[in-house]
């Protein structure tokens, strides 16, 4: 209703506007008409005048018509011109001015009704046609065309119609202006070139029009409006015009349009208006019929992990310990956002109203969204083991006793690092070689230094002859191997060893031109006990005795030569180089305790040679970078290798060429390894200053693997110059162990 009413009002407003417009238009038209009328009105008398004037005063009529050719539309000019003209008129003949009027009036009075009727008729005619001044026979042309002629156009008889005579000059005009009281209402008619004096009504009319009023005084512009189109339903139609014939004939255009639509609908281009589906926002019980079968066939779905729950850190008022200190804060700011433990800085507010909005809230939500649809998911099995279960169950060390546990003696006396130690087969004496160029003999039980032999060079290796019936010590220094007879045993043993050394001399002269020369000890050296010197071509690093005590092997590591190992026979003073080819840098060698095998450890592997058959029987891969030491089990079936990359590998010769077990006990390079001769023990010495004693039982049953259990870590040596323990050896009969270190001491652990 409101809308319709408003619409109506709007329409009525529009109507009003239209009406106003029409009124305006009408008034304009009326104005024009009236103007015309006025001019007609003016012209009528003028015409009459002309008729008469023609007869009586031609001159006056056709006086100078100077500016008759201006636009008729331009009122001002016209007026001016008129004025001029009128002025001219006035100045010329005063009397004439009034005459035509008077005559006209007279005529009107005289001729009476008949003439008036005619006039009226004429008026109507003029109304209907495009009204023109009858006196104007030339039409609506620019009047300047007739400027130079005395006439304007021709009458019906073909005679010239002369202009009223105009001989007024400026002065006449001025005089006219001054004297003629009607000068102001005199108007010049360009078309005829005559002056017209306006009547009172005409002046009034002009004034009214100038004021913007209607020309007709009687016209009431505010009269009440008759609503033509209104909301009231009328009985009669607005127009009584009968319907046009067209309206009864089906329209072709429409038909075309309809057929187009029909075609579009047929083709599916236009679809019927969609029913407004309100089920979109409507909720219902979606899980009314839960189907377990769907659950079963569901694909391998990994549900997204939930966001972790907040801890105390995130509180708006956390306990003080959760706030960042300055360092923590600086650290947090330095860290990459992905490395930070929390994505925010914990803050404390004294009351809830002070808590501001979290600036990264939308970010975090968005990141969660990204995680949900963009992050690859993977099922990860979390290892949920008790760490205790990972530790292997081993027999208790207590049950594996005896083994050395405590440091009981320290042998002091050397002034530089002690490279090598060796225990006499009786277990009573201990020999040690040091970088200070001395070999010392100690009594094991009392830690007393029994004898010191200055050999004049850093001692690389010492080895006590394992044969208990002789008492000899081999010492390696520089290019020499010395055989010492320390005479630290009962006389029988000493004499037997003397005999052994002396026996060589008889068979000696055969050898002479080898790489190695045997030299007898002389003079002072004999006093010290040096019996023999074996001169090698290169620096000797290690000497090893065969178990029988007759053969002696020495090692001269060299990359480029096959002269790396010599085997010497002491009783016959013979030396030989068993290898023809260089197979790598030899680190150390060892004899098999029972069988004629010889172990050569190169940088990465251990080769086993059969000395009788003179061939290689096995090659053990140590899986380490650089072997440092080797020891053979007294049974002969097992070998341990220490290496500079902290490893200790146990080889079971019957099992494989790969290590049976790798032990990474030590934190630094392993320097020495040793087996005990009777007890199932072995030990390794390392640069980290520790000696680790392990229990290693070897079973006779081939199916049973050796049992290896570390039983004790022995510490005592001080690390000097990054070197810790350099050599380790067991006591031949007791479960004791000796170790020599870079701190120039030898220690006994029992």
């Amino acid at each position: 209703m409101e809308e319709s009413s408003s619409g109506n009002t709007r329409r009525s407003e529009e109507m009003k506007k239209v009406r106003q417009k029409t009124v305006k238009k009408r008034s304009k038209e009326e104005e024009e008409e009236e103007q015309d009328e006025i001019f007609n009105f003016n012209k009528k008398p003028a015409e009459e005048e002309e008729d008469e004037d023609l007869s009586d005063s031609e001159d006056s009529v056709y006086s100078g018509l100077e500016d008759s050719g201006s636009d008729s539309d331009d009122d001002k000019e016209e007026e001016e011109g008129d004025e001029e003209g009128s002025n001219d008129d006035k100045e010329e003949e005063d009397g004439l001015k009034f005459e035509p009027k008077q005559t006209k009036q007279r005529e009107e009075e005289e001729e009476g009704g008949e003439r008036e009727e005619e006039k009226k008729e004429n008026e109507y005619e003029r109304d209907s046609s495009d009204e023109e001044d009858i006196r104007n026979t030339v039409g609506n042309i620019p009047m300047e065309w007739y400027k130079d002629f005395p006439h304007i156009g021709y009458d019906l008889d073909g005679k010239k119609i002369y202009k009223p005579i105009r001989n007024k000059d400026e002065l006449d005009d001025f005089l006219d202006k001054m004297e003629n009281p009607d000068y102001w209402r005199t108007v010049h008619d360009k078309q005829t070139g005559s002056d017209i004096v306006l009547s009172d009504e005409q002046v009034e009319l002009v004034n009214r029009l100038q004021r913007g009023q209607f020309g007709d005084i009687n016209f009431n512009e505010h009269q009440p409006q008759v609503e033509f189109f209104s909301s009231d339903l009328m009985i009669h139609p607005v127009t009584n015009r009968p319907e046009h014939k067209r309206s009864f004939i089906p329209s072709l255009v429409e038909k075309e349009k309809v057929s187009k639509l029909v075609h579009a609908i047929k083709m599916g281009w236009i679809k019927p208006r969609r029913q407004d589906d309100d089920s979109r926002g409507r909720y219902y019980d979606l899980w009314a019929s839960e189907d377990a079968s769907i659950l079963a066939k569901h694909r391998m779905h990994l549900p997204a992990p939930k966001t972790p729950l907040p801890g105390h850190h995130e509180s708006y008022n956390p306990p003080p310990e959760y706030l960042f200190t300055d360092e923590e804060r600086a650290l947090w700011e330095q860290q990459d956002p992905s490395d930070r433990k929390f994505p925010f800085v914990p803050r404390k507010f004294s009351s809830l109203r002070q808590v501001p909005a979290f600036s990264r809230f939308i970010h975090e939500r968005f990141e969660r969204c990204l995680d949900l649809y963009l992050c690859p998911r993977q099922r990860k099995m979390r290892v949920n083991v008790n760490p205790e279960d990972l530790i292997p169950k081993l027999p208790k060390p207590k049950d594996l006793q005896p083994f050395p546990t405590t440091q009981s003696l320290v042998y002091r006396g050397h002034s530089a690092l002690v490279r090598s130690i060796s225990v006499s087969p009786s277990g009573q004496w201990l020999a040690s070689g040091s970088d200070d160029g001395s070999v010392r003999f100690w009594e094991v039980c009392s830690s007393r230094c029994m004898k010191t032999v200055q050999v004049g060079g850093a001692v690389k290796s010492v080895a006590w002859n394992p044969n208990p019936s002789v008492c000899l010590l081999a010492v390696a220094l520089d290019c020499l191997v010395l055989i010492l007879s320390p005479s630290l045993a009962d006389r029988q043993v000493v004499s037997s060893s003397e005999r052994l050394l002396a026996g060589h001399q008889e068979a000696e002269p055969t050898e002479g031109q080898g790489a190695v020369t045997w030299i007898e000890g002389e003079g002072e050296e004999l006093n010290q006990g040096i019996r023999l010197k074996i001169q090698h071509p290169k620096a000797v690093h290690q000497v090893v005795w065969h178990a029988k005590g007759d053969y002696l092997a020495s090692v001269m590591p060299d990359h480029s030569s096959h002269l790396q190992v010599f085997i010497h026979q002491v009783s016959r003073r013979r030396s030989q180089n068993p290898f023809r080819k260089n197979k790598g840098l030899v680190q150390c060698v060892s004899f098999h305790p029972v069988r004629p095998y010889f172990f050569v450890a190169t940088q990465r592997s251990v080769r086993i040679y059969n000395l009788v058959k003179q061939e290689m029987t096995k090659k053990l891969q140590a899986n380490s970078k650089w072997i440092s030491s080797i020891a053979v089990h007294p049974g002969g079936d097992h070998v341990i290798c220490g290496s500079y990359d902290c490893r200790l590998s146990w080889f079971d010769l019957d099992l494989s060429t790969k290590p049976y077990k790798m032990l990474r006990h030590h934190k630094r390079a392993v320097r020495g390894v040793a087996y005990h001769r009777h007890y199932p023990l072995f030990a390794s010495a390392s640069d980290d200053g520790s000696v680790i004693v392990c229990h290693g039982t070897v079973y006779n049953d081939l199916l049973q693997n050796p049992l290896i259990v570390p039983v004790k870590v022995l510490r005592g040596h001080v690390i000097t110059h990054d070197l810790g323990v350099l050599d380790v050896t067991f006591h031949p009969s007791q479960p004791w162990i000796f170790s020599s270190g870079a701190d120039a001491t030898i220690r006994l652990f029992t």
Partner: protein
Amino acid sequence: MGGLQKKKYERGSATNYITRNKARKKLSLSLPDFRRLCILKGIYPHEPKHKKKVNKGSTAARTFYLLKDIRFLLHEPIVGKFRDYKVFVRKLKRAYGKTEWSAVERLKENKPTYKLDHIIKERYPSFIDALRDIDDALCMCFLFSTFARTGKCHVQTIQLCRRLTVEWMNFVIASRGLRKVFISIKGIYYQAEAMGQLITWLVPYQFSHDHPTDVDYRVMATFTEMYTTLLGFVNFRLYHSLNLLYPPKLDSKSETELKEEDEEDYAMNSESYLEKLSALSASLARVVSSAEEEEAELDQFPTEGEDMEKMETREKEEKVLEAQKKLFHGLKFFLNREAPRESLAFVIRCFGGEVSWDKSVCIGSTYDMTDETITHQIVDRPSIDKQHINRYYIQPQWVYDCVNAKILLPVEDYFLGVTLPPHLSPFVEEKDGDYVPPEKLKIMALQRGEKPAQEQEDEEEEEDEEEEEGEDEEEEEDDDNEEEDDDDEEKAEETNLKKMEKQRSQGKSLQVKVTPGKMKVEDKTRLDQEEQAEEKRLAIMMMKKKEKYLYDKIMFGKKRKVREANKLAAKRKAHDDAEKSKKKTRK
């Protein structure tokens, strides 16, 4: 060897996965459409076990979808709708270009839409599945409902989110399901229990957001589209499980109460109804008008032995829960205008309290500030001019702390202008060995029924506790760092020995002096412990490489935990000491 040579990557895991671009081509969808489809259908990339195999030998970083998933998308009707929409947009553009306004109108009327009901059903075959995944939906809806109604997303979406969240809150109130509340610096976390599922959501604080530019709102809007549908269905089901009307109607009683008030303030009836609902002050209409609270008692089953114990503990828990549900029963709260109204009203109503606020704050206030029966007034300003004598003026944190502690805490700590005790997260459950803040210990003591003694004693106690704690921690440390300790001892011995040795070696003139020896008391337990520790260390030496690595990792994690706990304890101690010294100087 006979037969054809087997080609690589034609079987096995390489054929089970498909890269994103290939998937897109297979579905012939544009990237935004593909993204939207993945979001709606819940398809996500999988990380293959052997990436290089799947990637056909290359190691380039690619995301892989399961081929089965993509095949499953092929038959999705919604893909057709996407295409329809594309066509629609094209037609519309064309019509605009041709300035055929009637065609534009017609096209607009026929704008293609789609429904997500079937997708929800497919993604969540059972209701419990849907409930489990509702966390994110709630967070998102709560966020969107706080957006301004301009820009960023459709107004309808925002209104829908608001409606759904209000419905959810009303459900939680009706079911008394709220369990924990936590005021964090990000917003307020709520945890509620519905159908036995714990649901956690985060509500941002009521501030206008300054929208970041590096966030793709289309992604968020797609998620919200899905979440609103999900939340609507979940709400429906939850309301029906409680015999409540859906869409929610206010109780007739409360409705009449509310009607008296300024109705003319709100122009639209529908709008004001949502406002009234969101006031959270009135209870909801039920389908079957039932007695207020049905006490569901646990049935007694005949049980034996261990089951009995379990039953007992369960009963106990049940009792605690019941007590918690009636935490604020009989208390009348009045919220000052600066307190966060919605959150507080929600929490208080969830635990059976009555709540009201100033009429000018929000529609739905039920009583005035001058009401004599008000027991607590929640104020968040330093002081208040006119105070009624028969009520407590407390800070808002009291309400939240009470809920988390499951008991009514003493109000003294929460009076106006008092420094509040720290607000702790209820989500942290400390295991043994973790650091427990002393405030938590205090609350635990209160829960056990121990009355806090006078303040000073309390403090002393605290100190004691702390000391005990410290000792405990030390012991723990001992346990964990035994090895190190032993090492240390050994080292000490060594140093002693070394000293002696040095003395001996340097000056041969040893100070020969006999000092009265001390009886070395052999602590047997100590020795045993040492022995065991050594055994362990030796055994660790013999571990295999792989196991050793794992063991080291686990131990490292454990040690780090201990370290962190110790750090927190130390920080706390330093803080307390500083406080104490400050106090002393002031005295």
